[in-house]
C-alpha cells in the first residue's frame, strides 16, 4: 500500500504553517519539488564530515569526497538504466544540459565535422519549455540551419500528422519533451524516435518532467540524449543531468573549458579528457551529486512504478474535481491518460495571478503565468494559466483544498 501520510513525514517543509497559521498545500511540484530529510541530511553530512575537492585531491577527505561524488553518478546511471556510468554528465540544471547538446552539435570536433550546418533542419515542438526552444533557435541562427516544429492539437497532443513532411532527410536533430510541463501531455516518443532514426537524425529528449514521475530506462527508450534536472526529483538545486550515448559523447567537442576536462594543456593548445569529464569544466556540483544520489535512492526506495501510479490516480482525481467547477477550463488533455501530474487551467473572469493570489491566501501554492511555455499558451489563445501540479506526497485532501479555494476565489471576484 502506498502510504502518503508516511511519505509526507519525510518532508520537513510539509509540516510548515503559513501566514494565518494555515497548513501548506504545496501544488507546485512541476516547478520544483520539495526535499525529504534523507536528501537534506546527506548534503549536511557531506559538508560536515567529507567536504573536499574531487579528482585532484589524494588525501583521505579527497578520496571520500571523490567517492561520494562519483557514487552520485553511479546512482543516477542506475536509476535511468544507463548502460554505462560514463554516459552521465553533470550540469547545473536541465537548461544547461540542453544548451550543452545544442552547442556541441553545432561545433566542429577535431578531425570531424559539425553535426548541424547551413541547410540542415532541427525539429522541435510547440509544447516545449523555453529551455528546449531558445537553445535551438540560437543553434540554427548560428549555423544557418532551419528550425521547424510539430504543432499541438486542440486536445493538447502532439500533431503527428505532419511527421513525414517535418522529419526528412534534411533533419539532423529532433528535440522533444517527454512530458509537457504545461499541458501535462506524455508524448509518444517511440514513434518520433523511430522516424528520426530512420532519416539519420539524432533525438534529444527533455525528460525534466518525466524522470521525476515515471520509471525511465534510457537504454530501452532509444533516444540519443536525455536531459533532466535534480531539483524536480526531490534533489537539490544546482545540478542537472545530460545522459548521452557514449560513442556520441566521445565524438563531440568540449563545451566549457577548464579544470578537469583536459587531458593536457600547453599555452598553444589543449587536448581533452574522455566523457563525462570532457563536459564537466571546473569544480563540479559535489554536494549536489551527493544530494541527487540520495534523491534517487529515496525515489527508488518507494518505487518509481508506485510513484507513477500515485501520480496517475491523483491526477485523475484532480481532473475530475476541477472540471466540476463552473467556468474552469483545463488546457491540455482532460483525462488522466498518457498524462503527467501538471494541470493548467483558466477560470473565467479571474486572471491567473489573482487566482494564485487567492489560493495562496488559503495556503494553496500553485503557479500562475506562462510556465516558460509561451508558444504553448499562444496555441491555446491564452496569455497565462494557473497550474496545479502533484507529486508523490500529494493527497486527495489537498486537491479538495484546492477546489474549495477555487470556489472561494470565484466568489471573491464575483466570477
Amino acid at each position, binding site marked *: 500500500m502506498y502510504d502518503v501520510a508516511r511519505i509526507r513525514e519525510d518532508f520537513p517543509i510539509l509540516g510548515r504553517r*503559513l*501566514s*494565518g497559521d*494555515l497548513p501548506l498545500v504545496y501544488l507546485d511540484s512541476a516547478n520544483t519539488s520539495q526535499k525529504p530529510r534523507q536528501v537534506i541530511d546527506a548534503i549536511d553530512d557531506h559538508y560536515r564530515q567529507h567536504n573536499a575537492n574531487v579528482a585532484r585531491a589524494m588525501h583521505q577527505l579527497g578520496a571520500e569526497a571523490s567517492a561520494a561524488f562519483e557514487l552520485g553518478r553511479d546512482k543516477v546511471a542506475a536509476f535511468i538504466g544507463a548502460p554505462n556510468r560514463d554516459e552521465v554528465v553533470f550540469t547545473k540544471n536541465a537548461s544547461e544540459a540542453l544548451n550543452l547538446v545544442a552547442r556541441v552539435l553545432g561545433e566542429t570536433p577535431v578531425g570531424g565535422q559539425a553535426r548541424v550546418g547551413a541547410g540542415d533542419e532541427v525539429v522541435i515542438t510547440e509544447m516545449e519549455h523555453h529551455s528546449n526552444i531558445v537553445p535551438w533557435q540560437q543553434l540554427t541562427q548560428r549555423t544557418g540551419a532551419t528550425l521547424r516544429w510539430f504543432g499541438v492539437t486542440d486536445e493538447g497532443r502532439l500533431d503527428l500528422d505532419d511527421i513525414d513532411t517535418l522529419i526528412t532527410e534534411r533533419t539532423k536533430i529532433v528535440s522533444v519533451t517527454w512530458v509537457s510541463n504545461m499541458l501535462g501531455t506524455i508524448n509518444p516518443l517511440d514513434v518520433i524516435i523511430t522516424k528520426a532514426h530512420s532519416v539519420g537524425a539524432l533525438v534529444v529528449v527533455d525528460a525534466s518532467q518525466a524522470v521525476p514521475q515515471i520509471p525511465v530506462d534510457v537504454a530501452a527508450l532509444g533516444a540519443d540524449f536525455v536531459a533532466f534536472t535534480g531539483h524536480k526529483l526531490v534533489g537539490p538545486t544546482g545540478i542537472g543531468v545530460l545522459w548521452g550515448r557514449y560513442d556520441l559523447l566521445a565524438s563531440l567537442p568540449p563545451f566549457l573549458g577548464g579544470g578537469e576536462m583536459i587531458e593536457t594543456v600547453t599555452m598553444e593548445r589543449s587536448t581533452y579528457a574522455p566523457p563525462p569529464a570532457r563536459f564537466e569544466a571546473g569544480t563540479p556540483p559535489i554536494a549536489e551529486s551527493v544530494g541527487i544520489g540520495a534523491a534517487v535512492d529515496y525515489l527508488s526506495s518507494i518505487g518509481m512504478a508506485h510513484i507513477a501510479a500515485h501520480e496517475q490516480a491523483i491526477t485523475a482525481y484532480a481532473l475530475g474535481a476541477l472540471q466540476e467547477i463552473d467556468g474552469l477550463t483545463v488546457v491540455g488533455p482532460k483525462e488522466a491518460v498518457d498524462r503527467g501530474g501538471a494541470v493548467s487551467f483558466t477560470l473565467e473572469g479571474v*486572471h*491567473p*495571478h*489573482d487566482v494564485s*493570489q*487567492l489560493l*495562496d*491566501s*488559503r*495556503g494553496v501554492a500553485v503557479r*500562475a*503565468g*506562462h510556465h516558460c511555455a*509561451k508558444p504553448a*499558451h499562444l496555441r491555446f489563445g491564452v*496569455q*497565462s494559466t494557473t497550474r496545479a501540479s502533484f507529486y508523490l506526497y500529494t493527497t486527495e485532501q489537498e486537491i479538495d483544498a484546492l477546489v474549495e479555494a477555487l470556489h472561494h476565489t470565484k466568489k*471573491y*471576484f464575483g466570477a
Partner: protein
Amino acid sequence: MNVTPSNMDMLYQEIILDHYKHPHGAGLRDPFEAEVHHVNPTCGDEITLRVHLDGETVTDVSYAAQGCSISQASVSVLNDLVTGKSVTDGMAVLDSFTQLMQGKGQVEPDEDVLEDGIAFAGVAQFPARVKCALLGWMAWKDAVSQALVTTHPPTTGDPA
C-alpha cells in the same frame, strides 16, 4: 491593519477591484506621439500604451492591456492621475507611486498626490505583485520619453 498573505482585502481594496472591473480610459486612441509595448517576462502580462502630448501637457494616455486585476487597475489609476497634468507633474506622481510600491510597506502614501493610487499600499507587501502594479507606469514613462524626443527633437551644437 496588518497586511498578510492570508488577508486579501488589504491587497484587493474595493477601489482596485472597481478600477479592474471598470477601467478608466481603456482602449487605444489617436492622436499619439509614442506607442510602446511592455511585457512582464515572469507572467506574460502585456500592455500597449500610447501617449498624446500637447506641449508640456499630457492630454491622453490610451492603452490595451492584458493582465491581472492589479496591473489593470493600476493603469486605470495612472490614466486618472496623469491625464491633464504637465509631464513634470506626471513624473512626480510616478516617482511617488514607485516609491510606495518599492517601500515594502514602510512608505506612507500621500493621498493628495496619489488619490485612488493609495489603494495600492497593500501591494507593496507582495513582492511578486509589485511588478504587476508597475507595468503600466513603466510603459508610460517609456512612452513619454519617446514622445518628448518626437515633439522636442534634441538641439545639437550644430544650428543646421
